């Protein structure tokens, strides 16, 4: 279970405080794959970062006895001056992997990401798609209770997307995902439940279909 207690999160803008969450208390049940929906700027990524403990509420607490991956996005988590290989090795060390495990992970990520020679080039020479592939492959090599995925499924060409989705489907037999996406089909395919973020409120739907309907209603009203 993920427990949010009186969580308030805001950003200070020129027009004053902009609330992402306003005094929200909610229990999110375990063992479901959750899609996060909301309009641009509603705070989907911020919520995800808060779940991953790299962003913090202004008030209240978020507690859970599960472990979360780092948020898988297109950009973060890599050091530009280091090669892909060095970055993978670094993350393995962070997670306390042994030398043998590390070498296995490196081989796996190299093969999965299809970076070939670029794997031994500095990350700053990568295109954003290449970064996404590396980041996605790396995350598949670790086991988490929840994988936090921020739109990374759209990296690469059609063939790679298909492969990524297959690997992810296999992965979520043993773990859960929290997914931010604007693609309703992806959400329907991967998630059972949904969270809709709107104007400082978050609503949990047991069923992703009803979450999508809710979100579409908000969109209609917005227009």
């Amino acid at each position, binding site marked *: 279970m993920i427990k949010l207690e009186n969580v308030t999160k805001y950003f200070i803008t020129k027009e004053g405080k902009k609330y992402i969450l306003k005094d929200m208390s909610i229990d999110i049940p375990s063992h479901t794959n959750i899609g996060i929906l909301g309009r641009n700027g509603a705070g989907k990524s911020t919520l995800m970062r808060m779940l991953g403990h790299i962003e913090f509420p202004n008030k209240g607490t978020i507690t859970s006895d599960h472990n979360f991956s780092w948020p898988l996005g297109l950009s973060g988590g890599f050091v530009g001056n280091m090669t892909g290989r*060095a970055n993978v090795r670094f993350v393995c060390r962070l997670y*306390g992997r042994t030398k043998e495990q590390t070498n296995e992970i490196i081989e796996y990520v190299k093969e999965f990401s299809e970076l070939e020679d670029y794997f031994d080039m500095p990350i700053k020479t990568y295109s954003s798609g290449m970064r996404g592939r590396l980041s996605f492959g790396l995350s598949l090599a670790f086991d988490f209770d929840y994988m936090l995925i921020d739109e990374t499924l759209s990296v690469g060409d059609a063939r790679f997307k298909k492969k990524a989705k297959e690997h992810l489907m296999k992965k979520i037999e043993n773990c859960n995902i929290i997914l931010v996406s604007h693609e309703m089909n992806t959400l329907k395919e991967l998630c059972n439940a949904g969270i809709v973020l709107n104007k400082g409120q978050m609503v949990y739907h047991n069923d992703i279909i009803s979450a999508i309907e809710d979100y579409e209603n908000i969109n209609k009203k917005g227009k």
Partner: protein
Amino acid sequence: MTARKPLNIFFAVQKALFLRELSMRFSMSKTGIFWTFFEPFMQVFIMVLIKVLLFGNSNTNLDFVAFLALNFTAFNMFRNILSKSMGAFAGNKALFVYKQVKPIDTIISRVIVEVFMTSIIIIAFIILGTYFGNDLDVKNLPMVVVGFLWLIVFSFSFGLFIAVVDTFYSSVGKTINIIMSLAMFFSAVFYTVDMLPIEAQSIVLYNPLTHFIEMIHGYYFYALDDKYVNYDYIMLWTITLLYAGLWFYKRLEERIISL
């Protein structure tokens, strides 16, 4: 995934960060590596040259070359820890997506790297000094080591404090840079406090770094002593900076992570 103990996580993070910093140093620019090791030799060489040109080759009990090498090593270590600490948060921002990497870890690992580099430079100086027949006899080795260790704690405290404050008020870092560019002249690096006129002594003794360098060379050389060192004074500096650094850090840690 089995839960790891906080201390195990800390060591894993430190190991990862240390190896990363080292490989970045050694792979990024060859000139950077060259200067890391060449700069201290250059400093000593230039200062010896200036002294010989200005004052001639006076015969004292003090081996001036060894004296300079020791002082520059200690001073450079302080200066480098400070400047590397200031850049630690911004330079490692990308790593904060891994929740086990806390901002303070990046400072600790940079301090460890600097201490490591300093050790290599010390070894290089000892080899060269032995080769050229310099007088490297140590009067009180344990106290020299204590001096260095204390200086490391002081540098870390100073670095942490400045890094946290600089994150929110960037003019602090700029001010420190200006001060540091002059600090070498006020830190008993190429003289001892004893050599100065009394008025000048009272001024340089406000500088805590002067006390550290006086302590280190006072215990190293038979010809020198530590009579100008005020241990209470540097203890007060160390404790105040360490406490203030940790206090501000603790309060602002979450904001630094989500910068």
